[in-house]
């Protein structure tokens, strides 16, 4: 009974993602058509001739009605056709797929760092209100959201690369003296480990530490704030008092009782954290010359490579919807209240 309830809710969540995806497709379509001047000229790129512009006009179907154009756009998307990037000459889909692992690897490490710092910090601050831990947490939270992520990045480069000399040069995923590991997952650290090449693993990891921390500092603020708030609320509730009065161990009360209940609002905050993270990813990638999809988009923006930018926006939005969907499903699985009513 309980299991089927959860399955039904998860299915409902999957259905709810559909309007979001339709909305995203409509918005990216509008963005393509909102171009000042002739979209065909933009899609053709700066080096286009009159003939190629005309070809693109017919191939894009710009002489057809808006509804027909939308249909063509949507069916191209359904086939995974995002157009061709004029700056690299490759299809946008290939470019994005080739660069996605670099961005994801960085984002996951940043997320790991951010959760690893924010949760203990928030819990410590909540269990000892107004202590030095709490004050420290407050400073981190306020500073974290005020620091421009590109500024933090540059500051860390200056401190750890130029002054202390312990970080490698901020130039991409791997120092030039190393060969990239055989591509299995596309994540250099994991590929290097699978290959048994610990030296390359160390090199890849050391390139990644600064950008990941930069990204993590920006996103740990909302997480720490939420953890602290949620823990404070749960700790002041009746069942915690009962648990304490029953003589349960402090750690049992804190982790088994309180933290599991505080986890739900924290999971909800993760959605916002992902929005921050995917956005600031672009800035961090620029600072550290990271060859991910963010730097691809920046390069494309500079040369008005329009299809590439659109593909990037679409890919990021879909990624964001999928991440939120995952959070929703995890939420449903974790939430002890789901299925209790029946």
């Amino acid at each position: 009974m309980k299991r089927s309830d959860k399955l039904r809710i998860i299915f409902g969540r999957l259905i709810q993602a559909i309007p979001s995806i339709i909305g995203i497709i409509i918005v990216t379509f509008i963005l393509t058509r909102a171009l000042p001047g002739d979209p065909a000229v933009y899609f053709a790129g700066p080096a286009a001739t009159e003939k190629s512009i005309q070809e693109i006009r017919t191939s894009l179907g710009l002489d057809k009605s808006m509804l027909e154009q939308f249909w063509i756009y949507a069916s191209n998307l359904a086939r995974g056709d995002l157009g061709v990037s004029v700056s690299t000459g490759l299809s946008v889909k290939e470019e994005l797929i080739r660069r996605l692992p670099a961005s994801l690897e960085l984002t996951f490490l940043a997320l790991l760092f951010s959760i690893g710092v924010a949760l203990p910090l928030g819990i410590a601050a909540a269990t000892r209100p107004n202590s030095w831990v709490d004050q420290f947490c407050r400073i981190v939270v306020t500073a974290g959201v005020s620091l421009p992520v590109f500024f933090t990045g540059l500051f860390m480069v200056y401190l750890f690369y130029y002054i202390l000399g312990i970080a490698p040069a901020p130039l991409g995923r791997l120092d030039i003296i190393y060969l990239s590991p055989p591509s299995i997952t596309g994540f250099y650290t994991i590929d290097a480990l699978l290959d048994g090449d610990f030296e390359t693993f160390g090199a890849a990891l050391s390139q990644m530490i600064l950008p990941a921390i930069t990204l993590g500092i920006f996103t740990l603020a909302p997480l720490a704030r939420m953890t602290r708030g949620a823990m404070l609320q749960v700790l002041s509730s009746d069942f915690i008092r009962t648990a304490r009065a029953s003589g349960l161990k402090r750690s049992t009360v804190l982790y088994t009782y309180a933290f599991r209940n505080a986890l739900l609002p924290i999971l909800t905050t993760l959605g916002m954290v992902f929005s921050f993270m995917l956005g600031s990813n672009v800035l961090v990638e620029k600072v550290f010359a990271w060859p991910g999809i963010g730097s691809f988009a920046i390069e494309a923006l500079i040369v008005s490579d329009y299809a590439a930018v659109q593909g990037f926006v679409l890919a990021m939005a879909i990624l964001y919807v999928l991440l939120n969907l995952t959070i929703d499903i995890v939420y449903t699985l974790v939430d002890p209240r789901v299925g209790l009513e029946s």
Partner: protein
Amino acid sequence: MKEFIKHLRYVLTENPVTLIAGAMFVLLIIAAVIGPSIVPYDPMASNASQSLKAPSWDHWFGTDQLGRDVFSRIVVATRLDLSIAVSAVAISFIFGSILGSLAGFFGGWVDRIVGRITDTIMAFPLFVLAMGIVAALGNSVENIVYATAIINLPFYARVSRTEVNVRRSADFVLAARLAGNSSLRLLATHIYPNTLPPLMVQVSLNMGWAILNAAGLSFIGLGVRPPTAEWGIMVAEGAGYIVSGEWWLAIFPGLALMLAVFTFNLLGDGLRDLIDPRRRT
């Protein structure tokens, strides 16, 4: 009014952080208003013999690769950075609160449409959507303003929807309705003004985020173009010199940016205390 001033003084003296934030806010306004006429050097004047000089008594924040005074450029940039953020926040405040109020007051299909619009905007990672909008509309300062306004719209719409909704059938509104006021008049003169305090808190908290966002866009080369003095682009221009040790080019404009964002965030918290003492953090 007298009560309000008393409360204001209480909030300022009770929390020194708010007082500091208030002082920094005044400083920012002064820099924005009279900055260009009090700076020691012309922010645009290059001087090849003085390029890349470290901070000194003559040049407090050093000079950049063209010998321009970094301090003067930072002060002058305040006006541009603040006006981008203020215009963006003003646009999203006006349109967001109107849409949200209509949704909260009338409910039904108006609510559904507004909800759908805000949900669709929120379905994007916001900075990425801003990049897409600027790319689509064209690379200019106005379009940075519009992009920042659009991505902030949902926050205002949501706050004012909730605030209007809880007051929709309050006694004072029913009384005004019985007195013969039309629906729109009720909304505009009786309910809407009451939603302004929470919206103001939102404005202040949002300002910092708007500044960060606009600076981020110009950092990646959108909107403001060199040689214009703007914090984001100054950090971007100085970024290349960090690895060779000329830190002052990027760090000082970055600090200015951070200080401005910090000011508005702290001010937002203080404003929340002022308006709603119960929600104190």
